[in-house]
């Protein structure tokens, strides 16, 4: 029988076992970013800004020039990178605690200025690396180590819908929310990332892609249950869709 290679690792990804927990979607998200970089011919001009939490080790898996940012500050660091090297392709990869809590000012002003860069935002409704504390995106009623009785609207406020918030800012050209829970959604997610990358390549403005992702460990679920939770509990609160598309290609609200 002749071997035929039908599926391989994107050339920009390293041959290294990932440290992520079983069922975590960071691996899928990394792969989608890597595929887009390779397919769009961006690898050799990319400067990535790695943020904090579980995904700080992005640079262990994707072989591009990378600088590490302090907590929440990746959009400011990326602004400095892009202003210093306007010809580089620049993206940040940030989780929900990083982007929607400590770094809320940096992400909003970066979008508002219309910085020519792309933000990949991984929303799993919980602080992963620090052990499962409440995030700005934690759902009402969701139990975490710092809201053990479940998040309460009156006490802790409700989950923040970042793709919609970013869509409302003047410099944003593209803001969308996709999910990683099914093959169909993963295909849509890749298209969204590619579109956001294209917008930067066309020098149009700021692009933002929110990915709904799992954290089976901190959700205390099996990987399959975690996948199901995205469809059942997250998407009703964080609807999928394009919230701003100023490219004139339609789909925006």
């Amino acid at each position, binding site marked *: 029988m002749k071997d035929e290679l039908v599926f391989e690792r994107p050339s920009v990804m390293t041959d290294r076992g990932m440290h992520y927990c079983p069922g975590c979607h960071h691996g899928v998200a990394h792969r989608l970013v890597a595929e887009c970089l390779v397919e769009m011919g961006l*690898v*050799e*001009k*990319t*400067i990535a*800004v*790695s943020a904090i939490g579980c995904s*700080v080790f992005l*640079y262990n898996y994707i*072989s*591009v*020039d*990378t*600088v*590490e*940012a*302090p*907590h929440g*500050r990746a959009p*400011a*660091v*990326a*602004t*400095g*990178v*892009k*202003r*210093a*090297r306007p010809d*580089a*392709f620049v993206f940040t990869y940030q989780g929900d605690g990083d982007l929607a809590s400590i770094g809320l*000012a*940096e992400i909003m*002003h970066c979008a508002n*200025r219309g910085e020519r860069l792309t933000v990949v935002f991984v929303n799993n409704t919980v602080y992963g690396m620090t052990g499962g504390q409440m995030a700005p995106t934690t759902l009402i009623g969701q139990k975490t180590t710092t809201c053990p009785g479940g998040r309460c609207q009156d006490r802790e406020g409700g989950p923040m819908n970042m793709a919609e918030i970013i869509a409302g800012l003047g410099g944003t050209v593209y803001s969308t929310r996709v999910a990683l829970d099914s093959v169909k959604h993963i295909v849509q997610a890749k298209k969204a990332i590619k579109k956001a990358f294209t917008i930067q390549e066309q020098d149009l403005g700021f692009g933002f892609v929110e990915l709904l992702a799992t954290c089976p460990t901190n959700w205390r679920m099996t990987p399959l249950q975690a996948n199901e939770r995205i469809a059942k509990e997250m998407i009703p609160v964080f609807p999928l869709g394009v919230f701003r598309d100023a490219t004139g290609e339609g789909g925006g609200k």
Partner: protein
Amino acid sequence: MSEKRMFIKGNEAIAYGALAAGLRCYFGYPITPQNDIPEFLSKALPDAGGEFVQAESEVASANMLLGAAACGVRAMTTSSSPGISLMQEAISYMAGSELPGVIVNMNRGGPGLGDIGPSQGDYFQSTKGGGHGDYRLLVLSPSTCQEAYDLIIAAFDLAFKYRNPVLVLGDAILGQMKEPVTTWKPEPVSPAEGGDWRLDGASGRPKRLLKSLFLDEGELAGQNLRLDAKYKSMQAEVRFEAYQTEDAELVVVAHGSIGRIAKSAVRSLRAAGEKVGLFRPITLYPFPTQALAELAAQGKRFLTIEHNMGQMVEDVRLAVRFHADSGFHGLLPGNMPTPDEIEAPIRSALSR
């Protein structure tokens, strides 16, 4: 080297000097008393082909500086005391990732909101870290507008030489006073600057990674040892001014604006026959410990004068400790002292 004579403020001297040094990116946030710098650069830097960003906060401007520095371009932020406090996180990360950026602090009075008047209350913050972790900044203290121009150019060269943030510590006196400055043009920035570590896209070479996270056992220890060796090697950069110290019985130690005012006092006392001299540290880190120790070994006495309640005096006492002690006279922050006010404590120290 084309020279030009200009009558400008200390803040403007810093902006002109940075442009002459090849400044490419400036990030800042308004705070008194240094606003002349961003105001000037908001036009002059784009005109010179660079990038100016008014950030949403000092936190963001310092992190923009981090990003630009990672790309190996000459970048700067400027602020004043409370703003510098907000920048400490990024400064620590820059030291940990070995990124060359220039930070200017036009020191005002504190703690807290303090006032907008001159002070040297940020000496500890500038020279002893300020942010978290084991690290050092090169710290330069200009005392005149001319020196501000000259030292900001030196600051960029030193930042790249050592791959380390450099802090230029001025104050509200220096920033707001106006004097003649002879501008000069240094050698143009080499296109190869930062070439072996800077991020510019991994075209035709392996990827590069600039980071301060070292999790494996022993990895951080190795990094901190390397950094420590670098900090020790900075001793080569020690700068100071010794004025009439040879035959002085009493040496006044003062830096920055106060060093310059103290010099006037010393000059006047010399004219009156008093054997007094001035020692003015220009690098606050590395501190000119050795030079002070040598003066102490000659049997001289010391009086440290600062615009605070006593900070640099600790470094002076460490330097002279085997031979002498240093008296201390604190000037209250928020006021601008005259040479007369400085003469009185020197006279009193002389008579002791």
